[in-house]
Each structure stands twice: as C-alpha cells, then as structure tokens.
C-alpha cells in the first residue's frame, strides 16, 4: 500500500449537483477498490495558464489516498474516460502524507499573478 496524490481539473461548466455527483463518483471508484481517502481538497475554479482542451478555466480537485498500485491504474483509466475531466496527474508520495502541512490557498496565487502582469506591462512601456 502506498500513498498517492491525484489532482484533476474538471470542466468549469460543471456546477452544482452535477459537480457533487461527479466528485462522489470518483470517490466511490476509490472506495470500491478499498482505497483509503486521506484528504480531498476542492480548490475551486482557477484560471489556467494555458488552454487545456480549449478551456481557459478549470475546477481543481486534490485527492490523497492510500492504495495499491493497481488501484491507481484503474482510477486513472476512469478519469481518462470521463469527458468532464480536462487533465489529471497522480504523484506517489514516498514519505506518506503529512496532514498538518496544508497547501497554500489558490486565491492568493491568483492575486500574485495579477501583480506580476502589471509589473511586466510597466517594463515594456
């Protein structure tokens, strides 16, 4: 059993009940295969730095789980089949997950990028 971390980006048009159903579906896929979900973070809608499947926005979801490697294969296969998923990435956490260390909020990052844009503009002028 190993600890994995998957981030996937959902199409921004999917909201409300549809979104919760989709999230529930993928959690269920993990649960069905005896994977233990450690954490599920919803980062909300973010602007993407480049177009992904012709979308410039996406809803980010981060899931940490403990499972065998075969589970990851099946989970990724199901992600690939779903049209609502723009992109996904699974990373193996070699040292497990430290739940106390929380990741940065996404809103702050966006603010930063806006600042940077304005700086660049100034330099060009």
């Amino acid at each position, binding site marked *: 059993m190993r600890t994995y971390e998957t*981030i996937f980006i959902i199409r921004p048009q999917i909201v409300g009940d549809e979104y919760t159903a989709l999230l529930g579906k993928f959690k269920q896929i993990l649960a069905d295969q005896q994977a233990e979900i450690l954490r599920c973070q919803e980062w909300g809608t973010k602007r993407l730095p480049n177009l992904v499947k012709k979308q410039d926005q996406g809803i980010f979801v981060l899931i940490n789980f403990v499972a065998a490697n075969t589970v990851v294969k099946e989970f990724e296969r199901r992600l690939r089949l779903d049209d609502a998923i723009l992109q*996904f*990435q699974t*990373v193996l956490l070699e040292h497990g997950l430290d739940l106390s*260390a929380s990741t*940065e909020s996404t809103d*702050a990052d966006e603010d*930063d990028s806006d600042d940077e844009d304005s700086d660049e503009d100034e330099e060009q002028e």
Partner: protein
Amino acid sequence: MAFDKKSVARRRFGRRKGCRFCADSDLKIDYKDVRTLKYFVSERGKIVPRRISGNCAIHQRKITEAIKRARNIALMSFTSKRTIE
C-alpha cells in the same frame, strides 16, 4: 575588466549566494506551491539555471522536477503569460 563582467552577471537576478533550501530546512519544495517555484522561473517561463539561482545540485533537481509537474497539471505556464482580452 573581467571582474566587472562577473559582478554585472551576478547582479542580474539579484540573488544571494548559496542554496536557500540547504540553509533553511523548513523550506519544502512542493509542485503545488507555485509561489515558491516562481522564483526559479524567468519572465519567459524558463527554469533559471543553477549558476544563477544558487541552488545546490540536489535542490535544483527537485525544483526542476516540481516546476515540470506544476506545468503538466496547469499550475504554471510553459511560456510567458498568455494575454487574454
């Protein structure tokens, strides 16, 4: 002359000497932490080389890996910022 050239090159990125991750063990390299990774990317979106960023080999390798992961999952851009509007 040669001395002047060197100092100019070093000042371009305004970085201190030495690996900041070796100096401070609390700093973690994480591909989700875009704010930290931004320091190691040029305006064009290229990864800043070790001779300029001052990282040690181990940490530069980790930074590179993290930036590539962040790019892959659309947290960072491959090139300079695209302008919509």
